[in-house]
């Protein structure tokens, strides 16, 4: 399946770009991620636990970054094997552009496919599931960079001193 969307992030392009290359951010943002090792240069190894309809499995796989144009765009390619549950793989082309008021517009174009039991049992719900996964990923990414949105509130504990900064921004500004 294929989906694309864009988000406006309240941070400058450099900050957003750095977050995209951060292992910690990726680990935080990939829904169900238990473990993430590696580096942007060599690729990441990840363990993700997810439940797709009736199929719950631990996926082990890798994420590689390619087509990197510094500060502008990159492609994330991942494949996860869930043993008897089958596999999921996909790619996201992410590009950044300057928005208004110093914000950054992040546009993503995601292609994902599943195989094995995931396809056999989950086909009816897989589109919705993939959309949810992508939404969650980029919502968390946005939160990590700029802090939870005011309307949603977020699930993280309130920041000390009512600060709205995302944890990544805080790390950077230290």
């Amino acid at each position, binding site marked *: 399946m294929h989906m694309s969307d864009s988000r406006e992030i309240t941070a400058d392009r450099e900050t957003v770009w750095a977050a995209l290359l951060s292992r910690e951010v990726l680990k935080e943002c990939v829904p169900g991620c238990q473990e993430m090792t590696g580096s942007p240069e060599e690729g990441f190894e990840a363990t993700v636990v997810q439940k797709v309809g009736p199929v719950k499995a631990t996926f082990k796989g890798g994420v590689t970054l390619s087509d990197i144009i510094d500060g502008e765009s990159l492609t994330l390619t991942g494949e996860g094997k869930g043993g*008897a549950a089958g596999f999921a793989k996909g790619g996201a082309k992410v590009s950044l552009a300057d928005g208004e008021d110093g914000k950054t517009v992040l546009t993503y174009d995601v292609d994902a496919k599943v195989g094995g039991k995931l396809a056999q049992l989950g086909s009816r719900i897989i589109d919705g599931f993939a959309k949810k996964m992508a939404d969650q990923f980029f919502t968390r990414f946005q939160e990590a960079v700029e802090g939870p949105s005011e309307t949603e509130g977020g699930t993280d504990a309130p920041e000390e001193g009512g600060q709205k900064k995302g944890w990544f921004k805080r790390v950077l500004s230290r």
Partner: protein
Amino acid sequence: MPMDGGIGASTKRREDVRFLTGAGNYTDDINVNGQAYVAFLRSDVAHGKIKSVDTSDAAGMPGVIRIFTGADFEGIGGLPCGWQVTDRHGEPMQEPAHPVLAQGKVRHVGDPIAAVVAETLEQAKDAAEAIEVDLEELPAVVDMKAALVDGAVKVHDDLTSNLCYDWGFVEENRDAVDQAIKSAAHVTTLELRNQRLVANPMEPRVAIGDFNRATGESTLYTTSQNPHVIRLLMGAFVLGIPEHKLRVVAPDVGGGFGSKIFHYAEEAFCTFAAKAINRPVKWTASRSEAFLSDAQGRDHVTKIELALDADNNFTAIRTETYANMGAYLSTFAPSVPTWLHGTLMAGNYKTPVIYVNVKAVFTNTVPVDAYRGAGRPEATFQLERVIDKAARELGVDPIALRRQNFVTEFPYATPVAVEYDTGDYNGTMDALERMIDRDGFAARRAASEAKGKLRGLGINCYIEACGIAPSQLVGQLGARAGLYESATVRVNATGGIVVMTGSHSHGQGHETTFPQVIAEMIGIDASMVEIEHGDTQNTPMGMGTYGSRSIAVGGSAMVRAAEKIIAKAKKIAAHLMEAAEADVELKDGQFSVAGTDKSVAWGDVCLAAYVPHNYPLEEIEPGLEETAFYDPSNFTYPAGAYSCEVEVDPETGKVEICSFAAADDFGNIINPMIVDGQVHGGIGQGIGQALLENCVYDDQGQLLSASFMDYAMPRADDVPFYEVDHSSRTPCTHNPLGVKGCGEAGAIGSPPSVVNAVIDALQSGGHDVDHIDMPVSPSRVWAAMNNA
């Protein structure tokens, strides 16, 4: 009135006592002491190169006895194909290897890569998950036409293309058909897809291999419709075990519908592995595995053209079909779109020239083979749909158009190689019209419209070639097997009878109907007769049950054997009564001498045969046991007329079947209740195809409809109460019982009338829709109505 328990009596099914009380003995009920369990690691990609299979971690896991991969089967035969089709140019079909476990490549999701044998099933499954397979995924070919494009990815690298064969039938008629279509007053064209189906018998497949070290004998317990065929194919072509060292047992089998005819990898694996590890090995398919490994059905894409003259007489039929073989050739796959499909394209009609072209195509999908009806539903559907479309285009009554073109004189040699021995198509149509109150349809339609619904009436005819079939004929057509049937009739000393038949019952009710025939012939109670089947050790070599052949071929073999028994018993009776053999008559279980009061009972004759104190030993041997093999001279040709009335909800596109009527001519009938049941079940499956079932792959070859959540089987509320009529009977002219077979008729005859009815309903609502592909689901109907 039929004799109680004899031919024509609706005797209750005796096998139901055990089936309905949980006392059946299915293959999974069999547990052999010391058995180990197997789990197959199956490909989750549709096409890929196997770079390595690393079993080292898995091999050390708890309970693992041994792990097998493709390497263990190098030099061992692959699964054979039982039918070779010759193409339009006189060349044999392309026939790829079909290994037991994948060698080098996987070619469909579900293709077995490795097999773990372990102490428990759970341990086997855990270890299978720990096997590391390094697979290089290759692009998959799923769509048949795309598979035939130059440069398309090849399913089998060693074949020249994905085309299995390009078959033309009858090739000599090709030009005549083209000419007739060119010069026709009217040509109706229809393009359609006969969608892929999954058979889904209630009982999934099971295989248990057992090897006896002391005797060197292998035994396979398996869910099969034809244990002797499995013994021959697996023994001779795969594992190299002679028949006298190989026993195949197919006990109670919970439905087959064709999918249990074929020889499967799991059967060969369990037999092989049992010897290799010296332990019995058991495999039971999960429902998910059944979706990925049972041969699937149908999957034809067809264009049909029907030419008519100015008086609406059919003048020619031309068809072009793409038939999906899947990734490998299943046992009888090549015969289905050809000899079981092209030969039926004349239907019930006297069309002078017909040309059928079929291109069979390999794709990265589960193999396709015979499924209830096998080729004949595909032929019937396209023909009966195009006739309906022609009637609409010409503004003539669809029944009248059919009647006008019926074959009425028999025997009738069709232009597609078969000769119908007998039939009465107006007779079945009359019977149908008596059931359906066609005159009242307008009022029923008005009543539906008053509720905001559209009502449609659909009619179709069908013919099928059953009782498969004459060995010499099928041999000429490419069958690599004979298709006779066998029976041994063993009379015991006290008069009871055991019939050992090569036919196999997996729901058909042979244990009830076969004794009815013997009871009628001898004049004894049917309870004195038992049927043995399904075990190669105690039944004569038989070809099994499919193609509605059991009573026509297997029943005939039993009759021949029983005739030999009666002839011998008459000799014994003549001796006992000191009469001439020619004067001895058998009636109601008594032998008597014509014109005298001398008689001797059946039981006394049987006893004399086994206690031959007073016996003509110089003339005949003691004992009373005879075997016969019966090879018919022709197929049988059941035929009929079906009707369906539907209501369509224009808001949602939902189709509801209001009534369904079936008038069949099965020739003579042994047990009307069982025949009704067979027809009911067949119609249920046909309605399933028409409205619900669809096997779907994505463009990567991933099977998307792989459980009952996504593959819609018909349920009780999807089908109406059926009206069936079997009063129109033209007995088969060439078998001793005059029977034709009834197992597939319902599945063959029902889909077109459902779709014809839906189209009729939509047309009545002013929607210019002339075809909707099956399944005619609410979304498809709604889309067609709204040009969406």
